């Protein structure tokens, strides 16, 4: 018996009862399609998160104060200036951030809970915010605590729906500011709308709103993306000196102990760290989705077993005839295994087609991104399932004794 003959009799078997074969294939189709599609959805959402984090700026490091620290270990404007002028090898510049949330209004409209960011003139170079029209404020504005502001694009159109906001006056919690620049539109990073902000000189923000104590955070930019880890180390060493962190605390923090890290008065994060964390969680999300889909594939596989058992019972007499004509155990086993494999392979191929088609559409706000290896994986698994779940029915067929098989009706 040649392989071609076995395949031919298997195809004949599959087409003998078309409706039943189609329904069985449907089970496999749904399983394979679900695996590929859900893996694509997981991958798509991972990429969305990655893009968001990249938009935070991969060269940017954020230094945050840990809790309410006061006294010598507080991160103040003076610390920020010293850090900026320390001449660290891999650090381009350091800018302070003093943030609060206030109501901003114009003669036309009023917006509550707008992020107010006080910073220095270099803010527009260090952060991902760039000035689209007008200009950023200058160092002179910072020195003089000028009442000038650069505002986000959304805020600009909300406050001045007709005509440009540039040169107009806005009121931040009662304090009038002149709009000197409008920021380029940025993609949202999730929690706050980066296009609904007011950026003003830190001196003015501290004087009018936040006070002269500790800053919320510092933003630093590394000279190169590759230099981010080095920059992070240099900033840490410098900050330990500036804030008077004891060498023992610093040493144990450097060794990576979590309790020691939290004993430091600050935390440095960068987009790459966030990125790897996000990637790790995205991977587990994708695996979870694939596991759920794999269950439906398993159910489809059990459907194959069920149908094959019925088929074997129905065709007992045919098995008897074939055995009487000299079919070996192996030939009968091969025929029914091939039949199960054809069912699952066809179902699998259709599942791939459906999944590839559906992945062209947004699903629950996420654009699926197909994972290349998921297609051969799902197909391979579906055929393996066909063979695995076909072994029992095929084995039953092969083990039949010819006289008993012939005697059945």
């Amino acid at each position, binding site marked *: 018996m040649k392989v071609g003959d076995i395949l031919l009799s298997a195809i004949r078997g599959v087409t003998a009862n078309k409706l039943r074969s189609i329904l069985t294939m449907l089970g496999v189709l749904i399983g394979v399609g679900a695996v590929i599609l859900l893996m694509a959805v997981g991958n798509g959402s991972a990429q969305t998160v990655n893009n968001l984090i990249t938009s935070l700026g991969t060269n940017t490091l954020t230094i945050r104060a840990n809790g309410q620290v006061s006294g010598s270990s507080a991160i103040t404007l003076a610390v920020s200036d010293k850090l900026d002028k320390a001449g660290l090898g891999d650090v381009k510049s350091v800018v302070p951030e003093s943030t609060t949330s206030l109501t901003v209004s114009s003669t036309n409209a009023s917006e509550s809970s707008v992020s107010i960011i006080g910073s220095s003139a270099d803010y527009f170079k260090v952060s991902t915010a760039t000035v689209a029209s007008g200009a950023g404020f200058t160092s002179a504005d910072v020195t003089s605590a000028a009442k000038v502001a650069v505002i986000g694009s959304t805020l600009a159109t909300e406050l001045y729906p007709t005509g440009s906001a540039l040169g107009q006056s806005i009121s931040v919690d009662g304090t009038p500011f002149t709009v000197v620049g409008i920021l380029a539109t940025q993609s949202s990073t999730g929690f706050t709308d980066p296009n609904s902000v007011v950026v003003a000189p830190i001196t003015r923000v501290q004087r009018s709103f936040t006070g002269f104590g500790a800053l919320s955070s510092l933003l630093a930019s590394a000279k190169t993306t590759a230099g981010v880890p080095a920059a992070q180390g240099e900033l840490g060493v410098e900050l330990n000196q500036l804030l008077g962190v004891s060498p023992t605390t610093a040493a144990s923090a450097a060794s990576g102990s979590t309790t020691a890290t939290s004993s430091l008065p600050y935390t440095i994060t960068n987009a790459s760290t966030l990125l790897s964390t996000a990637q790790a969680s995205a991977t587990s999300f994708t695996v979870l989705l694939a596991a759920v889909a794999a269950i439906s594939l398993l159910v489809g596989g059990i459907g194959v077993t069920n149908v094959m058992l019925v088929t074997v019972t129905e065709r007992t007499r045919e098995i008897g005839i074939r055995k009487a004509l*000299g079919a070996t155990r192996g030939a009968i086993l091969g025929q029914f295994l091939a039949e199960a494999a054809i069912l699952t392979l066809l179902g699998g191929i259709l599942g791939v087609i459906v999944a590839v088609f559906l992945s062209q559409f947004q699903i629950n706000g996420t654009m699926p991104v197909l994972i290349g290896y998921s297609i051969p994986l799902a197909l391979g698994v579906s055929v393996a399932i066909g063979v695995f779940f076909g072994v029992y029915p095929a084995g039953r067929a092969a083990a039949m004794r010819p006289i008993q098989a012939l005697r059945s009706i």
Partner: protein
Amino acid sequence: MTIAEASRPDGVLELSDIHQLYGTGDAQVHALRGINLSVKAGEYLAIMGPSGSGKSTLMNLLGCLDVASSGTYMLAGNDVNDMDENELARVRNREIGFIFQSFNLVPRMTALQNTELPLAYGGVKYAERKRRALEALELVNLSHRADHRPQQLSGGQQQRVAIARALVTNPTLILADEPTGNLDSESTHEILAILDQLAAEGRTIVIITHEDNVAERAHRVVSISDGLITSDHLNRELAR
């Protein structure tokens, strides 16, 4: 083929002291109680007996569909009792051509494909297979129905396909189990004529039947009852 047949020693089938037991304990059935039978090459033998006489059991043994509980069965010089499942399958494929009462063609396969089936299991190449199957169908005058499926053929035609399938491997033994049991008298006549012709060509045929008109065509008639051979004689006409 005739040369090969002629060169074979006497006794293509040799059965000695064959016993067949089914079941255990109280339910045990002693279907065959010591069968001794020798069939020569080219013989046309009929095995007769009422139902329950053990003739179906004997037919299963002769066809290597089952193995005897005790005794020896030599088929073309090979001891069948020593064979494993795959060897038995090979013997059924090469040495035996079955003709069943209920035709036993595989549905959904054409007459030609059905005829080719034993050759396929024997590993014969496609072209060779088709040529030999068409030849066999020609022998039973059905080559014009080669592309028909069993359900498109009459009972007599189906049985002729089955005969072609039994002939196609050129087997040592053609084993027919009530071949005319499901047929009308016209088809019966047709099938018996074909069997006569095959016998005349020197094929070894064993036919199992309970009909006298079928048995009287054979050269030799063996009667079996309660698992034992009760008579074994050459046919009256031939004896005369």
